């Protein structure tokens, strides 16, 4: 009995192994027919709201490439894994993409996750393409982490320069949230505005837990600035602007990409008029973007959460496809090392929803900044700063 059961076990194991071997062989055969890359995004947890929409955008991107004939006739294949926006889970996903799916490159996002994965990407010489994380440190994570998304200082620099030079504002007040997001960006604004010939007459922080800003705003009012720059979060900035207008501060207001959403206008009504925000991707005035948003409305019944981010995610597979094509044309083996070299050699990519992208050797990118302004209850493009 015992003997029999052992032989059955052995037979089962043998069958299992052969099946596995067959599967692997099939997988290898398939791998030759497709170009595979990974996508590690939060599909569950608190950030899933954004992550899922971004994955959908990337899937549309891949589908569009494949519908147009793929890469040199071969299909582009995307392996999607969940990170829960958690660094630890992100590392597990990266390990799986590298050792099981054997992708030469993968896309990730969320600064904490990108930072955690970077050493894994470096050790295995697999390219991590950060699409959406904007911490300035992303540029310093080693040879194998690149970003397609402009890092933190680009839009703040643009809005400070524009205020001082084009708008001709001489005195600015800066009101910022006292956390990592606010402190660093407020310093950048102050430095750039001062360098451009302006003067920062009030520089006020506020507590991230604050729900009332009277004291700081009255101090700003006393300094009598020409323009007020608010560096807050999407959760507090509309309230700060509302309270500012209630206290009689009528100066123009500028902010950054966090406030560029239709909700601001809904929440502030007329008080939103004239508010300047930044966007790192073209808005609805661009035909492809308008069509893309229309597709969301039709297929999903709403606009995507974090529209500009989803535009970047839609475009990311196009970068993958361009590098794979170039490697395939040159008959180079598809490895992480070759992928990196080829990506830097191509350098400039023309992308459908976010326009031209230049990936620099120093791990930053060049992208135009779109300055948006609320006019007659709508976001309209004020200027494009290169």
């Amino acid at each position: 009995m015992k003997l029999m059961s052992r032989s059955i076990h052995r037979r089962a194991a043998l069958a299992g192994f052969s099946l596995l071997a067959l599967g692997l062989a099939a997988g290898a055969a398939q791998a030759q027919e497709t170009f595979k890359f990974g996508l590690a995004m939060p599909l569950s947890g608190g950030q899933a709201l954004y992550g899922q929409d971004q994955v959908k955008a990337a899937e549309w991107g891949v589908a569009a490439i494949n519908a147009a004939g793929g890469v040199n006739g071969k299909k582009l294949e995307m392996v999607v894994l969940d990170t829960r926006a958690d660094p630890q889970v992100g590392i597990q996903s990266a390990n799986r993409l590298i050792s099981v799916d054997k992708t030469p490159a993968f896309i990730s996002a969320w600064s904490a996750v990108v930072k955690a994965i970077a050493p894994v990407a470096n050790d295995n010489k697999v390219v991590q393409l950060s699409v959406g994380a904007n911490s300035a440190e992303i540029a310093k994570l080693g040879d194998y982490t690149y970003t397609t998304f402009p890092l933190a200082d680009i839009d703040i620099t643009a809005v400070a320069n524009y205020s001082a030079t084009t708008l001709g504002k001489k005195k600015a007040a800066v009101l910022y949230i006292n956390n990592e997001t606010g402190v660093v960006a407020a310093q950048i604004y102050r430095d750039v505005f001062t360098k451009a010939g302006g003067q920062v007459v009030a520089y006020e922080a506020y507590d991230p837990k604050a729900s009332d800003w009277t004291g700081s705003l009255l101090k700003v009012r006393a300094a009598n600035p020409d323009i007020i720059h608010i560096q807050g979060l999407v959760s507090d900035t509309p309230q700060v602007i509302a309270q500012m207008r209630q206290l009689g501060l009528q100066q123009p207001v500028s902010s950054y990409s966090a406030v560029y959403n239709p909700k601001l206008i809904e929440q502030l009504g007329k008080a939103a008029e004239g508010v300047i925000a930044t966007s790192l991707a073209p808005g609805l005035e661009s035909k492809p973007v308008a069509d893309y948003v229309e597709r969301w409305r039709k297929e999903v019944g709403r606009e995507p959460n974090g529209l500009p981010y989803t535009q970047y995610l839609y475009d990311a597979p196009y970068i993958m496809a361009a590098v794979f094509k170039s490697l395939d044309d040159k008959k180079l083996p598809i490895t992480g090392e070759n992928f990196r070299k080829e990506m830097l050699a191509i350098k400039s990519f023309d992308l459908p929803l976010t326009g031209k992208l230049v990936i620099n050797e120093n791990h930053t990118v060049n992208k135009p900044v779109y300055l948006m302004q609320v006019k007659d209850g709508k976001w309209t493009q004020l200027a494009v700063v290169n």
Partner: protein
Amino acid sequence: MLSADIIAQILWTSLATSSYAVLFALAFALVLKVNRVFNFAQAAMMTVSFYAAHATVALAGLPSWLGFLAALAGSLAIALLIEVLGFRTLRRRRAAQMFVFIFTLIISELVAYIAMLVFGTWPATIFPSLFWPVTLVGGIAVSAWDLPAVGAMLLAVAALFGFLRFARMGQFMVAVSDNPDLAELYGIAKERVFLFAMVISALLVALAMFLYGTRAQVQPTTSIELMLFAIAATIIGGIGNLWGAAITALLLGVVQNASVLFIPSEWQGFLLYVFLFLAIVFFPNGIRLPQRSRRLTRKTPTPTLDASPTSDPQKV
């Protein structure tokens, strides 16, 4: 810089925004006084009442009074659940105070997580617009939100005061808070009193959260942050002292807002913790009070706390 109109404006806005802070502190202090529980689950009541109002008014497009009723219903439902399924069971098991405290923490985090899954992390409001029209009264900007909010707060405080002072259940509550076992000997149903304290706390929370949500944006974790302020006010005001907590909430708001004029603005948030630290280190009575009062009441019928409520047990 320090002109009269700036000071007057800060005082007025702080009074207006303290409307919800006072109610949060009262709700927290009441449960602490009567049920002897550091009820962190108040954040769960806050979250549920806000999202109930948000779903009714912002999502379903129903009138605001229905939203207010939904906030009340939501807050009451979760308070009853916490009391009946949680606190009552834990009391029956004679669970340690720390265990009850951890239970309340878990409930508040759990509800925040569920709210995140259902409503997402995007900040939400009850009304689509956050902007309230302003009238200038002698150089002071008074928004259309300010007066109703302060009025509602004063009414609620007066009602609570009257209830504790004159209603039979209110007097029972004070008796139980002084000495639950003695109160039981006098024939007061302790469990009912605990339940009632949670109900009143839920009503205060719903009103306060409705006021907050009509003026500010709320995320699932906002309530936990707002709670910290209520806890600070309760500790600094002296544990077991309801009106002390309410007045501290009001004063803390004024001090925090006015502090910007005297100290660098980055230190504004830090101030709350300085006060908390000072209160805990130099006024330990604030924290040890309930235990000591219990010991004292065994020896003498009148505990040291609050003069008005403690004289009530004899009347009962």
